[in-house]
C-alpha cells in the first residue's frame, strides 16, 4: 500500500505531525484549503463560514439527510500566508477533546508536486492520545457520509 501520508506522535508529548506529498502544484494544493466548495468536497462537511485571513474564523457543520447536526467544528485563524502557512485553532462542538492548535506548512517540491506538513498541538498528552486512539473522531463527518455506502454494501 502506498504510504504517502506519514504520521508521528511521540510518547509523552502533546503533539502530532502528519506529512503528505501531493502530486499537485503548490498553488493548487493551497487552493484546496481556501475555497469553501472544494473543502466541502474533500472534507465531506459543509463550510458555514470561512474567513481565510489573519484573525478570521471558520465554522464547519455536517448534517444527515434529515438535517440533524452530526458534527460541528469551529476555530480562529491566527496566521494566513498564501501558499505557505496557515495557523488556526480547531474545536469540535459538544465533544470532550478541547481546543487544538494547528500549524499547516505548504511547500513546493517541484513545479508539479508539493508537500503539506500538519502539526497539531493538543491541550495535554492524554487528550492527544484520546483523540488519536479514537482515530476516527475527527473524521466523524466522513464516517457519516460513508455510512450510506457501507450500508448499501451490507444489504
Amino acid at each position, binding site marked *: 500500500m502506498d504510504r504517502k501520508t506519514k504520521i508521528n506522535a511521540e510518547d509523552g508529548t502533546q503533539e502530532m505531525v502528519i506529512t503528505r506529498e*501531493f502530486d499537485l502544484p503548490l498553488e493548487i494544493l493551497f487552493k484546496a484549503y481556501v475555497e469553501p466548495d472544494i473543502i466541502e*468536497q474533500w472534507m465531506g462537511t459543509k463550510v458555514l463560514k470561512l474567513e481565510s485571513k489573519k484573525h478570521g474564523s471558520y465554522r464547519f457543520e455536517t448534517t444527515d439527510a434529515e438535517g440533524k447536526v452530526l458534527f460541528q467544528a469551529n476555530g480562529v485563524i491566527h496566521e494566513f500566508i498564501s501558499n505557505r502557512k496557515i495557523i488556526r485553532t480547531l474545536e469540535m462542538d459538544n465533544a470532550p477533546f478541547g481546543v487544538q492548535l494547528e500549524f499547516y506548512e505548504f511547500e513546493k517540491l517541484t513545479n508539479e508536486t508539493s508537500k503539506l506538513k500538519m502539526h497539531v498541538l493538543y491541550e495535554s498528552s492524554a487528550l492527544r492520545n484520546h483523540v488519536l486512539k479514537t*482515530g476516527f473522531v475527527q473524521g466523524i463527518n466522513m464516517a457519516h457520509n460513508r455510512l450510506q455506502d457501507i450500508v448499501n454494501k451490507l444489504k
Partner: protein
Amino acid sequence: METRRDVFQAIADPTRRAILSLVALEAMTAGAIAGKFDSTRQTISKHIQILNECELLNQTQSGREIYYYFNPEKMEEVADWLEPFRKLWEERFNKLETIMKKAE
C-alpha cells in the same frame, strides 16, 4: 462467524469503525446506534457484540437501558495504534488530490 476476537479484526470493518466513531462522542444504546444505519438491528447488534467482546466498548446501565461508549485504552493493544488515524487522513488527502487533479 469469527471465532477469535481481537482489536485488529474489530477495527478492520468499516461499519464497526463507524460505530466507534459514533460512541466516541456520546454513550448510546444499541437501538440508537442501529437507528443511524439502514441495515437491520440484528446486523448492528452483531457488530456491537464483536466490539464489546474486544473491549473496545464499555457499557453502563441506566435503568433498563444499556449505554455503550468507546474505550480508547484498548487501542494500546494495536501495535500501531496510529494506523487508523493515518489511514483516515490518507483517504482524505487522496480525495483532495483526485478532486484537484480534475479541477486543474
